């Protein structure tokens, strides 16, 4: 945490090295979070990339006292939500059609290299209601506290804890029916 405070302070003072360090420190967690929320390879790549670029441009707006990881995770979660909302509203394409359209896009420089474990976990997470998936992912991947998640989800802490618990139970039963991860 103290390291993060120093990083933010140096970043706000204009240090590119501090930004590099922040990037390297959190990119994997943010990619895991985005891929869990979106379960869409390219969208997850885009969201995290947008998040870092936007972060880099916001040095004057970041509070030195804030929790850096939580800030970045919230940024990813908000962007993921917007992405899903836009997708639903504008692209009411049936799932099989959307999938085949996506798969035809050739983008060789895919950022996340998916392991079979990660893919299966994300597929399982995807079967949960979005709020549960979000609560689990933010807590597990981004280490966010329930209070912060409650703020993001505009819900009470109890509700978020229930979402987390029910989500884990359901996830457990989904994965229990599969082979060992």
């Amino acid at each position, binding site marked *: 945490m103290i390291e993060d405070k120093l990083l933010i302070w140096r970043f706000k003072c204009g240090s590119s090295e501090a*930004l590099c360090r922040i990037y390297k420190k959190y990119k994997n967690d943010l990619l895991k979070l985005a891929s869990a929320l979106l379960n869409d390879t390219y969208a997850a790549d885009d969201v995290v990339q947008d998040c870092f*670029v936007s972060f880099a441009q916001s*040095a004057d707006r970041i509070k030195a006292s804030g929790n850096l990881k939580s800030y970045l995770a919230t940024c990813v979660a908000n962007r993921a939500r917007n992405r899903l909302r836009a997708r639903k509203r504008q692209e009411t394409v049936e799932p099989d*059609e959307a999938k085949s359209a996506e798969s035809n896009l050739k983008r060789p420089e895919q*950022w996340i290299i998916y392991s079979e474990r*990660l893919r299966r976990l994300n597929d399982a997470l995807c079967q949960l209601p979005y709020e549960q998936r979000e609560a689990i992912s933010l807590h597990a991947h981004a280490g966010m506290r329930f209070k912060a998640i409650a703020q993001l989800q505009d819900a009470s802490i109890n509700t978020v804890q229930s979402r987390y618990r029910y989500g884990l139970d359901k*996830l457990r039963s989904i994965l229990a029916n599969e082979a060992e991860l």
Partner: protein
Amino acid sequence: MKPAKNIGKLIKNIDIDTNAKTDEAVLNNTLKAFENSKKEKSAATAPNIWRTIMKRPFTKLAAAMVILIALLGVIFIEWSTRPAWAIEQTVEALEQIKTVKITGLSIYDSKPIPFKCWIKFSGQNRKSFNMRYECEREVAVVRNNLAFGYNPRSNKVEIFSGPKIHKELQIWYKVRELSPWVAGKILEVLKVLTDNWQETYEKNPKTGSDRVIVTCSYKPLNASFWFVVDLESKLIIEGKHWFNINREGAPNFHAQSFVYNQEIPDEIFDFKIPGGAKVINQQDLEQADALFDKAFKLYDKDKNYSEAITIFQQVYELYPDKNIAEEALSMIGICYGAMGKYQKAIESFEKAIREYPDLKGWIESTYFYLGRAYMKNGQKDKALEAFKNCLVLGEDFHKPNAFPLEHARKYIDKLENEK
């Protein structure tokens, strides 16, 4: 590890690998954005603003604003490579501008329509301005904190005011915040945006005066520019803007003449609501949005399509003069599609197209949905026609590799292969 035993730990500890090349590229982009941001704080908002502009129903006016700003802004880019463009001289010239009148052509439904635009700066440091843009298809007036948008075809006036100005108008205010025309912010923004910058110095064949012709483009937004700067006055004298990066075809916006510092009477910025015009205010729009969201939740989350249709129908009936009514009709079609009632879906999409034929930015998606409903209904020829309409109408408004164009093209290929 058995997942059933410690699922939380499993999620937390799962490994992830990344492509090193992409890692480096993203980091470079991030650092570049950081460096640019340090120099040009205002640059951060520009791409989003630009994207928003292109998506909004007020696109023509917004595009006009962009080109006007761009035209006066981009002349600073790479000024240092040409001594003829001493920035101090240009700033000095621009600082004298109190008013500007621009006339030219703007494309509506593939036809060039003449327009006029007046802008008058006011207040200290010219931080605010009044504006009027008019052509036979629309009139828009911004005066202090009030904005009016008038569509003569539907005889509809939209009024926006105050800090919670509706999203269509927010963009104007964003543009205004950036202190366009003269202040440095917008210039800094454009320095970051454009590429393929080319300058050609020449004599004006008519007047013999020196001038420079500049071209540049911005790939991510599929936009390109061509404009002429008079080297004596250092001001823009003509400009064009295309919604493609190669300046192909007729320009979507052609500012043919700029008249600077001519007296503009304040009456120009008055707006009188035409007789019989339907007036829509901001509160109506917020209520329509709330009802629409309620219906959308029923469709998306609860899968309660029949209830969603009832509420979308209410949105349409209560607010038929708003863009959201077209969206509501489109959503009714989508709900019927989800219920497998394709004939009903077709009727709804066709109604949306019939009643809102000019609603660019939305109507192309409706054509896509119509095509899909025809396909499901076994009417392949009609489906093909609808997908083609989607492509033609959408080419100026959507990226070619994104929804709905990408999907429409895919279906066209499929249908033509089946012939």
